[in-house]
């Protein structure tokens, strides 16, 4: 059994107290919500915080408010099970319910939170290993080392953004409310990320994700397809999030965001632009799928090789569009287990 390193656990009751504790302990401290990502990582010594600021006792962080018509606010501490089952989310932000319901396994969804999922660590075959293993092989720059084992000679880390909900939230135009000891701010979700395997979040270490804010859903439909090996447990090796607003029988507006192909969710703006004002014909869908696969530049540091993941990007984008257009061949609406 791998064991956790020693740490002090703080259990604040308010967001403010949590932010203050984080500020006070600086680089030694980390927040923890469900712990389904952080605790296993700590067992592997990928993080060794001396102080953990537990978020589970903070009332303000839980709860789902609002309605699809006027927009919704989801507390960061809401569990993924609650997000997946919420009728208003299922009805108006279908892709989010799908994505939350496809994270890992039922047990982990009961513990794991939406805030934790948005902040989930990036992944890499050479990094998601025990401490002994990494030590034996030689540490890489993401933790304890100074080289990249996937792309030797690279000055950056290419670990992969592996959140299921992040690409969906991005495609839905979500914003996040960040709370720090010295105040709060609301930013578009995409501003939370940067393309770096180590510093994949732009927020200050002391800042907490308090809420995820969804814009009114009026007229939007959405779909999420996930590529993974097994019917449960596995992180996405590819996630495709598509959101569409139809204008009669033509696409009014569209967003396509890919997960697990880079160190952050990766939008496909050219593909989305090609949809605007058009009818969703099979020919258009094929063209858009090809365009969407462009920004998909996976590295061979997760499951499957990059040519396959790139090819699957095309297939999944087409399927998501077909599903939203009500055309046949949408695949299984929820999921692609491959």
């Amino acid at each position, binding site marked *: 059994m791998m*064991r956790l390193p020693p740490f002090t656990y703080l259990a604040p009751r308010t967001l403010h107290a949590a932010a203050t504790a984080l500020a006070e302990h600086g680089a030694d401290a980390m927040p923890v919500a469900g712990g389904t990502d952080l605790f296993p990582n700590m067992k592997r010594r990928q993080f060794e915080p001396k102080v953990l600021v537990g978020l589970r006792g903070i009332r303000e962080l839980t709860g789902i408010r609002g309605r699809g018509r006027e927009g919704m606010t989801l507390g960061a501490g809401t569990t993924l099970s609650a997000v997946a089952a919420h009728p208003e989310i299922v009805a108006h932000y279908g892709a989010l319910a799908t994505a939350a319901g496809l994270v890992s396994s039922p047990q982990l969804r009961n513990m794991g939170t939406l805030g934790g999922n948005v902040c989930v660590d990036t992944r890499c075959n050479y990094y*998601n290993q*025990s401490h002994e*293993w990494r030590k034996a092989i030689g540490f890489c720059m993401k933790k304890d080392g100074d080289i990249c084992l996937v792309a030797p000679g690279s000055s950056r880390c290419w670990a992969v953004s592996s959140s299921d909900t992040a690409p969906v939230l991005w495609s839905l135009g979500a914003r996040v409310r960040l709370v720090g000891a010295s105040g709060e701010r609301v930013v578009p979700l995409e501003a939370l990320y940067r393309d770096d395997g180590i510093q994949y979040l732009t927020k200050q270490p002391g800042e907490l994700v308090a809420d995820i804010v969804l814009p009114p859903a009026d007229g939007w439909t959405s779909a999420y397809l996930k590529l993974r090996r097994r019917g449960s447990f596995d992180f996405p090796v590819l996630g495709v999030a598509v959101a569409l607003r139809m204008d009669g029988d033509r696409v009014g507006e569209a967003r396509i965001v890919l997960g697990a192909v880079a160190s952050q969710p990766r939008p496909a703006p050219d593909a989305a632009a090609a949809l605007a004002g058009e009818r969703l014909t099979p020919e258009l869908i094929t063209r858009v799928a090809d365009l969407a696969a462009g920004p998909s530049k996976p590295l061979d540091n997760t499951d499957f090789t990059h040519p396959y993941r790139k090819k*699957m990007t095309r297939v999944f984008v087409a399927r998501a569009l077909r599903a939203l257009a009500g055309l046949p*061949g949408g695949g299984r609406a929820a999921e692609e287990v491959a």
Partner: protein
Amino acid sequence: MAEAVVLHPSLRLVGRPLPRHDARDKVAAATAYAADWGMPGMLQATVLRSPYASARIVKLDTGRAAAMPGVAAVLTAKDVPRNTLATDVPGQTTAVGPLRATLHVLATERVRHQGEPVALVAAETLEQARAAAEAIEVQYEPLPGVFDPEAALAPGAPRVHEAGNLLAHWRIARGDSAAAFARAAVIVEGEYTTQFVDAAYLEPESGVAWIDSDGVITIRVSTQVIEHFRDVAEVLQIPQNRVRVIGPYLGGGFGGKEDVTVEVYLGLLALRTGRPVKMVWTRQESLLARAKRHPYRMRYRTGASASGEIVAEQIDLLADAGAYAYLSALVLLYSTVTAAGPYRVPAVEVEARCAYTNNPPTSAMRGFGAMQTVFAYESQMDRIGRALGLDPVEIRRMNALRRGDSLPVGQVLETHVAMPELAERVWAALGPVRPARAAHVKVGRGLACNLQPYGRIVWLHDWSSAWVGFEMDGSLVVRCGVPDVGGGQASSLCQIAAEVLGVGLEQVSVHIGDSALTPLAGTTTASRQLYMSGNAVLKAARELRAQLLAVAAPMLGVKDSALDLLEGAVVADGGRSLPVPDVLRRCAREGVPRSHLAVYHAPAGEPVDLATGSGKVFPDYTFGAHAAEVEIDMETGAVRLVKYVAAHDVGRAINPQSVEGQIQGGAVQGLGGGLLEEVILEEGINLTTSFASYLIPTAADVPDVEALVVESGEGLGPFNARGIGEPPIGPPAAAVANAIADATGVRLTRLPLTPERLARALGLLGKAG
């Protein structure tokens, strides 16, 4: 699902699907597994392992570690009285000769695979032990390694062992295959590859050792072989009667606990410290360095007549033995003997070799070399059938072995061979073909049959012993040294004893797996335990029954042949009866034993010359057939299992529930190996050391396996049972590969059958892919 073959119309318990006593205990968390044990003053131990796949140990200094707080002992190879364990493997070809297959307890001057044990530490706490292990100073000088058996056998390859990299070589040459090929109407050639697979049992390797008050080193360990007390004694250089191994119920073995694991280390540390010591390997350790299933490269050339009879087969097998011999030579022997499958092939040539590499060692795993070959020979059968326009059942029906036929090694099949009927049954059980649910989906079906030996190689002179006795109150005790790996071994023995001695199952207590206190029963491996120990218990129970009835006969004034034992009483014709305790008291007075110790000897033989096909290698075989229906996503290569049916002739199902469990579990494990599981190694470095990357199937990945328990009434076990532990793991990969070919026309020849490989074969990834 048991067939209605009524062999013993009067059986009360045997043949009934009775709930096992250990199942409830496990669900209620009452079972004390090896790692659940604790003792006052117990130390915690850990192993320091090599980070390199191939290196020289230049310096090994334990001084600093030994001085750390809480540390009770730090041991290296020089502290091990005998650092080498050996198994004798007779036979083989002249190129190799009789083999003494060896392994080291701890690395000496060289490490040969990543994770090889280098040093042991015992300390008051696990944290202290681990800290001390990290503080051991080892300097390695990396050496060139070899990571592929083909490369290992090439001239000039780095030598894993001084004597060279060819570990074992078996050969069969039967009939004139050149002439037969010349007559063949079709010849199908194929190369098939299988991967490293892990046993992935729930319970990692673990145990506790202590020196008991009688001075005997006692080791309570998760093992399939309590007879390893002898190996521990050899390593410790103490008499064999000073070591006792207790084998509690296991959380799975699958062959991975057939070789020694923690017991030798625990023995060394207990002897050195004089204190109880516990060692539990982490999942990462277990996945990293424990013996795996052998990857094979199998080249098949099969010739058939225009009507579909196989006339000749040429087979070349090459297996990766990893860094140490373990049981590789014997695994390879199983492959050699079963290479042509359950078919009549008049002319067969088999060349089988395995080579040392700097990969993790490979050894026993459920199927033991007789399962990799199924993937090859069943893919070949399918291709020949397709080439000749014969359906999968027909081509197998034409070529199936029958009783009286002989295998390529010359062994004549003496019991029923249920071959064509098993294939017919599973194929029919798939039911009507369902239409594809979408345009991009294709549906296909595949069939695969196999044969798997049960019981150990006849020249190993296998035996098992068991003791059955009544207590004065009429309750029954069975003592038998079987390890129960989770297959219901103990409970089936109870069923047999209770059947013969006319008591209820709840009146039987069973004591298993203790090398000091239970009669030795041999290993729970080779699908042998029910066959061997079931026979031993049956023999003991029958003798005991005779003893009792002989005493009861004069009491009732009838001949003992007119008596029966039923519900705790001796019953005579006409309804007169005596409670068993009354008879037991009479036994006591007359000096008649109320127990019996029986030894069952399997049919024995001498090593055969495989090449000339001179005879018997295994006691007998279990036959099976599996059928799969799959859905293929033609855009992604995803394979979804829709329906799965598995049939085996088990001779007689002692407990159909346990038999179904074996068939379902084996099929699922085989599907895991067929579709998902793979130990990924890069230059000997294992990338799959957790269950996030070593992918075993979840409940969402496999359909219900429909188990057809077929009872021919013929087998060498008790009540004519055959072994069923290993057989069901053989066919799944081939059944799925054949179903994929049926759906898509594309044949995959490399395991696991991943969606990416299928996508590539379907041309979805273009040329560049």
